[in-house]
């Protein structure tokens, strides 16, 4: 059987080598760049500057130039934006997904049609969604403003994607619209594996459907639900495309990834940008650990 | 040419785990039909897979036709296997399924076609050759699986519970076909794994009954090797006696009073009883178990053998025979008696069970049998 093990590693080798070249090496180099000052037009001439990109007067954290406090700085704002976006989005899309899944779990005429329709937002590329909603939310010609005005819900047209107060919400809206199908399908799959007898027993006992949902359904799908949420949360922390295209990386909505792009590519500051990207990487890893611990605690309690 | 020898074969799945197979030593002769049988957990399938080469042998030697095969891959051992679920390649027709193994080995097309046709003839697969497995019934798939094995002209056929997925009627029919196949193929040996002792008794030239649980550690994996009649009439231990034969052999606690060359005297339920066994190796006065098969007990008030009084608890009528469940006394286990015909007697009837010396088995305190001194029936 040792033959089998040797074969396994042989079969895995090409993939591992490729991943090493394509993922591990660039990651290590990026971390290296974080400790240097480098300009994008001349990658070879990089100057080692230690932790200057991370802390100190030119750094991301503990910067004495942050007179309004860390959270008001560009980097702090980016972190704040990203986490706000991630949590709000994921909670909303989980709730919406739960609703849609419960709907699809019922048997009714046209159920397949609804399920097909639900897939549409997910199939549309993010860029297209961003442009499409950008158009619908357009302050002057957008249909959303038009409808809201017609229905008397607002007095003046709102610049949804430009106004600092509403920009983040418009990003959340588009993301929720786009990702709810994914959550709905996952939850539906979980719902469909639930044993029927619980429900039949509840029905025989005459238990109200809402109570059935709360006391029976929810606890049973808790585990896959939490897993899906953690998955999505970690995914949402890397958001870039949507914010960049919908709101052009405006400071009220800029995400951590957006800031990296701005610094590294637009400003050409590879060293600083790499420090930001490395910090982002660490923040996400830390979040992953925290989220997994939290869900494991919840599952252990269950 | 197809002799298989096991020498102290042991198998452990991982260090720290108990041995799944311990000290299996036996020989299967040329052309013999050998059945591995035993309760679940006895390792019979594992042992079969060790022979096939699908599992590694942890220690000990396995030889096929005189060649040590421990380190040989399955395809080089000259064996062919019929799987419990048939394992036919779903995307290939019957013909392609049967030809596949030969193709992999590099045989030329003409030889392959000839062998496939030959196997198809033996198993009457003619009209099915171009069908896919999903278009076949369970019994047909099984025949294709057997055909796939025949085509390779192996020294040894391995069957892993081939009848368990068939319904009862088909099972009996296929059992007969397998017996016929063995006769037709002559020189090849067969190892057949089953949990069904009826299949073992009817098909085997040689039965290998395997221990389960703690007994594996205490006594090794092999409980007894022998012909079906040997295991039936001369079980080597209470384990064997309890597994072979249905309904199970009755076992009663007793005491050895005395032993001579041709027979022994034991005390059962307060009664002195003679048994045709050689119990000289057992110390007088020690606790023993008396065994008697349900069909060997005669219910009669007078006649040969010691009389054991018992109370009738319940009768099950099977049509051709009746099973009487009787209580031989306080503190003693319920006994089963098999009587011919239909017995109509009310519960509570007092009966007299006659225990003939030739019908009795004696097992020592460790469950090992004393040698019986009667002739084995043919």
């Amino acid at each position, binding site marked *: 059987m040792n033959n089998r093990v040797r074969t396994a590693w042989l079969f*895995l080798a090409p993939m591992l080598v490729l*991943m090493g070249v394509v993922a591990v090496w660039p990651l290590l180099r990026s971390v290296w760049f974080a400790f240097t000052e480098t300009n994008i037009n001349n990658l070879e001439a990089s100057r080692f500057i230690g932790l200057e990109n991370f802390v100190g007067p030119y750094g991301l954290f503990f910067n004495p130039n942050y007179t309004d406090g860390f959270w008001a700085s560009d980097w702090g704002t980016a972190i704040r934006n990203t986490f706000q976006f991630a949590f709000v989005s994921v909670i909303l899309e989980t709730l919406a997904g739960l609703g849609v899944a419960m709907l699809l779990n019922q048997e009714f005429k046209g159920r397949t049609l609804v399920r097909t329709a639900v897939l549409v937002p997910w199939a549309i590329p993010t860029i297209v969604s961003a442009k499409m909603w950008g158009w619908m939310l357009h302050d*002057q010609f957008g*249909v959303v403003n038009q409808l809201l005005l017609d229905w008397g819900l607002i007095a003046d047209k709102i610049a949804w994607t430009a106004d600092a107060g509403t920009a983040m919400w418009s990003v959340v809206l588009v993301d929720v619209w786009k990702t709810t199908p994914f959550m709905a399908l996952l939850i539906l799959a979980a719902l469909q594996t639930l044993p029927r007898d619980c429900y039949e027993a509840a029905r025989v006992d005459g238990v109200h459907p809402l109570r059935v949902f709360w006391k029976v359904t929810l606890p049973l799908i808790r585990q896959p639900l939490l897993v899906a949420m953690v998955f999505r949360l970690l995914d949402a922390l*890397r958001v870039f495309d949507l914010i960049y295209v919908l709101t052009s990386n405006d400071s009220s909505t800029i995400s951590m990834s957006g800031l990296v792009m701005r610094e590294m590519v637009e400003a050409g500051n590879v060293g600083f940008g790499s420090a930001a990207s490395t910090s982002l990487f660490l923040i996400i890893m830390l979040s992953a650990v925290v989220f997994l611990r939290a869900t494991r605690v919840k599952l252990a309690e269950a | 040419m197809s002799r298989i020898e096991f020498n102290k074969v042991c198998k452990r799945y991982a260090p720290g785990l108990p041995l799944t197979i311990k000290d299996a030593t036996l020989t299967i002769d040329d052309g013999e039909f050998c059945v591995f049988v035993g309760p679940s957990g006895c390792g019979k399938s594992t042992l079969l897979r060790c022979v096939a080469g699908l599992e590694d042998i942890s220690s000990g030697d396995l030889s096929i036709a005189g060649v040590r095969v421990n380190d040989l891959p399955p395809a080089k051992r000259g064996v062919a296997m019929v799987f419990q679920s048939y394992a036919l390649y779903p995307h290939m027709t019957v013909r392609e399924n049967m030809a596949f193994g030969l193709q992999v080995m590099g045989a030329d097309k003409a030889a392959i076609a000839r062998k496939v046709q030959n196997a198809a003839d033996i198993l009457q697969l003619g009209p099915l050759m171009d069908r896919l497995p999903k278009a076949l019934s369970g019994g047909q798939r099984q025949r294709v699986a057997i055909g796939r094995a025949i085509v390779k002209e192996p020294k040894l056929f391995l069957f892993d519970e081939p009848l368990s997925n068939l319904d009862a009627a088909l099972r009996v029919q296929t059992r007969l076909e397998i017996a016929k196949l063995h006769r037709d193929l002559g020189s090849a040996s067969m190892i057949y794994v089953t949990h069904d002792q009826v299949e073992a008794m009817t098909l085997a030239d040689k039965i290998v009954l395997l221990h389960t649980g703690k007994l594996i550690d205490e006594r090794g994996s092999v409980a007894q090797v022998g012909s079906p009649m040997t295991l039936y009439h001369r079980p080597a231990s209470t384990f064997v006696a309890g597994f072979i034969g249905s309904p199970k052999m009755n076992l009663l606690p007793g005491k050895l009073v005395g032993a001579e060359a041709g027979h022994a005297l034991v005390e059962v339920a307060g009664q002195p009883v003679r048994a045709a066994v050689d119990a000289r190796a057992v110390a007088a006065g020690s606790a023993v178990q008396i065994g008697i098969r349900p069909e060997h007990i005669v219910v009669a008030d007078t006649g040969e053998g010691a009389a054991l009084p018992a109370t009738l608890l319940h009768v099950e009528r099977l049509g051709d025979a009746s099973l009487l469940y009787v209580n031989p006394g306080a503190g003693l286990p319920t006994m089963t008696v098999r009587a011919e015909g239909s017995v109509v007697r009310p519960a509570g009837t007092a009966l007299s069970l006659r225990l003939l010396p030739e019908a009795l088995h004696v097992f020592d305190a460790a469950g090992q049998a004393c040698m019986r001194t009667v002739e084995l029936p043919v």
Partner: protein
Amino acid sequence: MNQRPLLGSVALYAAAALVVCISVGPFLYMVLTSLKTGAALFDPAIWPKQATTANYTALFEGAQPFGRHLLNSVIVATVTVGGAMVLAVTASYALGRIRFKGKGLLMLTLLGVSMFPQVAVLSGMFELIQALGLFNRTLGLVVPYTIFTLPFTVWILTTFMRDLPGELEEAAIMDGCSPLRIIFQVFLPLLWPALVSTGLLAFIGAWNEFLFALTFIVEDDQRTVPVGISMIAGATAYEIPWGSIMAASVIVTLPLLGLVLVFQKKIVSGLTAGAVKG
């Protein structure tokens, strides 16, 4: 089965209608917009007074080489997915069917790699691409795209490989098959639906990628579709050609939508297999 109360039915169908409207509405609106040009775009009415395909034709004749963008996207996605699948088939066999030490850790690492933020490798990748002479070339995108495509395909194919019956593999071993033979002659014919859906999902992922495409390609000719759309500019600096943008979006979305709808069952099972079992 019991009869649903009338109120319940009404609520159910109302909810269903709402869900369908919200899901499909925006896309339909996008299609309608793409059929308007010029001043009609600024008309608040939803339906175009005069539907025209002018936007579509303009895309292929205009300043941006939209047709070229489409071709580039197809090439990059196909090469990425094709290469990943070849490696993933053997890798997933090892991960799905062979027991060995360190497998769990390896699977987790793979998952981890596909989860880390793309920007984390941006500078290193930039350097790599330049060194390989692939900067500003469409095919160069295959390198960063492999980061998420390869683990994804391996992960999903592993769950499918795991589900194949063990006795089938053993029968093949008894027939003398080497592992490669088992993969290609016994398993692959059974796995091809899984390959299709995995390939499809991976293709969609590569097709939609934006960040790397934005960073590593600056020459318009070499651009892929997502970046191309985001950069559709109008005749003057102040004019945003919404009509053209919508038309481009429709063109890009329709095939994807079509593929997803046709293969929806397989895609759903692929998604849930990867996620739920993971």
